């Protein structure tokens, strides 16, 4: 049932990064955004493995840019989140919020 599908932890992070970057979301920027905001080392392979899975589910779409010399003559692949991706994100976010509601995590575990 794809409409009940929740995002995994890393899928959640990648979708947020793509949403934040808007029309500048491609491998390098997504990786840097995640590293700078989560302080977590991420490989470019992990980003693409996740983005390809999200694309197969219809949550993101990709489009190729023009090849540039800075990239050894290779093109960028820009990603954007689809409407289905936004609803999957909201569904996951709501579920997490509902589960954490009433838990005073900051006080009990800090």
């Amino acid at each position: 049932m794809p409409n009940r599908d929740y995002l995994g932890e890393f899928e959640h992070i990648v979708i947020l990064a793509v949403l934040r970057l808007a029309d500048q979301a491609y491998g390098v920027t997504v990786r840097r955004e995640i590293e700078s905001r989560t302080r977590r080392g991420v490989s470019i392979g992990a980003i693409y493995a996740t983005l390809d899975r999200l694309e197969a589910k219809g949550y993101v779409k990709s489009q190729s840019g023009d090849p540039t010399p800075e990239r050894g003559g290779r093109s960028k692949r820009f990603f954007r989140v689809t409407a289905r991706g936004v609803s999957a994100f909201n569904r996951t976010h709501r579920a997490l919020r509902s589960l954490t509601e009433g838990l005073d995590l900051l006080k009990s575990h800090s």
Partner: protein
Amino acid sequence: MRQTEPRSRPPHLVAWLVELFASTNQSESILGDLHEEFLDIYSESGVVAARRWYRRQGVKSIAHLAGAAFRDAPWSFAAFVLLGFLLRWFGAELPARAIDAILRAQRPYSNEHYDFYVWLVTWGTPIARVIEMTLIGCIIAAIARGKEIVVTTTVTAISVVIVGWNFFLHTRNLPPQIPIPWGYLLASLANWVATLLGAIIIREVRSLSLRLHSTP
């Protein structure tokens, strides 16, 4: 525009391995991203740091891409691996039969090609087996599109462990006067490496064909 002089080029072997393990759709953008970040680090911290970063990113990326190939479709992945072993199992006797058929048909020992006969009897079957295993690698790669290298690497890795373990079991109690059959071990390992070679050939042909079609 930044120049790409020889020193500022990423490690070729790592780039090639990343290209092999990524699907044909992914490889262009992944290698482009790695190249872009490599040049940024090169201009900020020098070639040593940039190459070290590239190697680490390359290895981590290969691990993630291989893991994703299995996680995204575990059943088809397992089926491709099983297919590799089945093809090997069904074709186990084919090389020896082929050489036997050649010997019966050509009868090289009855004429002046006696040296060829000796060569064929000695090396025919091992060479035919390597060719067969290369073809098996090609068949698996042709079917397992997008994950050809990960599947054949898995088949090769499992086989190498089995071959190594069997070799250990058979040789550990050998009397000292009987020499350890290292040649047998090398031939067995070469067969499975040939499977990987077959997959690399198909992967390279696919990449080349994609490049030719995408060139305006």
